[in-house]
């Protein structure tokens, strides 16, 4: 066989494999939009569930998820950004730095349900926060740390070295240099990472199973020590634990969850591409 024919066949196979990957994405989204969109109404989004979740809306689950992810980012963003600053601006190439890098790799790889166990053991039981928004948000925050550190570090590393040299040569201290000549240029990149981590936190179920999630609550949570309903957990229970719920309610709940997650992802992607275009150095 001619080598060019071989190449054609090989490339076609590679293309087919790519289709196999992309097609399910379109399929999943298509199914959710087709079956879920008709179940969305203002009432569905803004009322409490009733009749054992079979009627009414998913308002408390949406609110719970928003509380959770907002509180988690409050914890993870400062620590994550400072960790990235340490790794990119201060750390030398030594054993400690290698250990930190390995730790980040491992944090990113720990099973989500193991995070749930950890949150249960540390925050719920040992620190006596109970099953609460605080415990869940802290668990999600630790889980999201690797995403924020990696994204922030990339953003810092993309700021040219000359920016630092100029600032340092003018007699500014190391922190002043970082504060005024590095951080401002890295902010959009850091923000992108933060939004992506928020999206991820919004969709996580296993870490919140034992730390915050409630099956059903008649009232909205009023403090961080309250339990809360959450959208991904709600989807899980209405699709596995409660019989005789209309399939449309399930799809509509999936639609809202995917909608929230994708909206955040799209914002992050747009931010990133704008940033790439604007960059002049």
């Amino acid at each position, binding site marked *: 066989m001619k*080598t*060019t024919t*071989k*190449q054609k066949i*090989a*490339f076609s*196979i*590679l293309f087919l494999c*790519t289709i*196999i*990957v*992309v097609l399910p*994405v*379109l*399929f*999943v989204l298509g*199914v959710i939009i087709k079956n879920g969109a008709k179940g969305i109404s203002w009432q569905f989004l803004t009322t409490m569930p009733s009749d054992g979740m079979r009627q009414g809306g998913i308002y408390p689950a949406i609110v719970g998820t928003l509380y959770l992810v907002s509180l988690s980012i409050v914890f993870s963003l400062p620590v994550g*950004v*400072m*960790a990235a600053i*340490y*790794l990119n601006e*201060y*750390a030398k190439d030594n054993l400690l730095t290698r*250990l*930190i890098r390995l*730790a980040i*790799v*491992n944090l990113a*790889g720990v*099973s*989500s*349900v*193991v995070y*749930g*166990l*950890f949150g*249960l*053991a540390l925050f719920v039981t040992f620190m006596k926060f109970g099953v609460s928004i605080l415990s869940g948000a802290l668990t999600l925050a*630790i889980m999201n*740390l*690797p995403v924020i*550190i990696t994204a922030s570090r990339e953003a810092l590393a993309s700021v040219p070295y000359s920016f630092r040299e100029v600032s340092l040569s003018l007699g500014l201290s*190391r*922190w002043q240099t970082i504060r005024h000549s590095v951080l401002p240029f890295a902010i959009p990149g850091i923000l992108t990472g933060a939004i992506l981590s928020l999206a991820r936190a919004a*969709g*996580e*179920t*296993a870490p919140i*199973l034992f730390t915050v999630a409630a099956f059903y609550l008649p009232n909205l949570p009023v403090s961080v020590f309250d339990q809360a309903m959450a959208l*991904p957990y709600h989807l*899980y229970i209405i*699709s596995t634990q409660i019989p005789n719920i209309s399939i449309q309610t*399930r799809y509509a709940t999936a639609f809202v*969850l*995917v909608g929230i*997650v*994708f909206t955040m*992802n799209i914002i992050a*992607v747009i931010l990133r591409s704008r940033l790439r275009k604007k960059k002049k150095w």
Partner: protein
Amino acid sequence: MKLRQIKEFVIEKLIFLSGIASILFVVLIFVFLLKEGIAFFREVPAKDFIGGKYWYPISDPERFGILPLILGSLLVTFGAILVSVPVSIACAFYISEVAPVKLKDILKTGIEMLAAIPSVVLGFIGMTTLVPWVKKIFHLPTGLTALSGSIMLGLMAMPTIISISEDAINAVPKSYKEGALALGATRWQAMYRVVIHAALPGIIAASMLGIGRVIGETMAVMMITGNAAVIPQTFLQPVRTLTATIAAEMGETVHGSNHYYSLFAIGIILFVLTFIINITADMFLHRNKK
């Protein structure tokens, strides 16, 4: 002047503390899993725990054998590897070496979207589409099988494997490929004779990280594999994984019971497993960089 120095001192100390926070958290996770799980091994020897064939945590007498769960996890993971690894590597090559620039961006966005879909949503879609299909095609009493789990988990591992493999392929020096092309090789020959060898450590690392993700996956697998704690014989029967056991049973245990501790003991095993996989994968990646 003095005040500024104090302020900077504090800030730089905080930065350092945040830097080492990741190490602290990994240690904390391990310590707290041990704290709750270690007591269990005083009741049940590790040998009986890992090798025991029966998981009856709430019957009388209780039996805590996780062999069916380990085999369930392994079976589903093995299936997911078959589903995801070859296709993902091919896809990574297509994106980085063959696809035109515009298509490349679209494909990359599509794969990012796949990674962004929450696992509980994939589990739900699996329940409503994949599971009935499996039931119908193979004429089974139930579609909640290891096969369904493998397909879904394979799908979930793909974005990880593709993006890290693609990085590895892109990191191969252009001169390698140009050398092969200058000697008269076609693009395809350059790809599978030269580029793939140089990128191999990265591709292996990518596959391992994908596998790590599969072993740790919880929600989707719990929703579509049927959760029967029996030693699996084929892909076409329900299985129960380690992760699904923790997630499904922790809510119903009594705090401080043997059952409660046993779930933490499973957590320890999962943690150690993913730890080993991640460290090994990182070694491959690091070697690649040198």
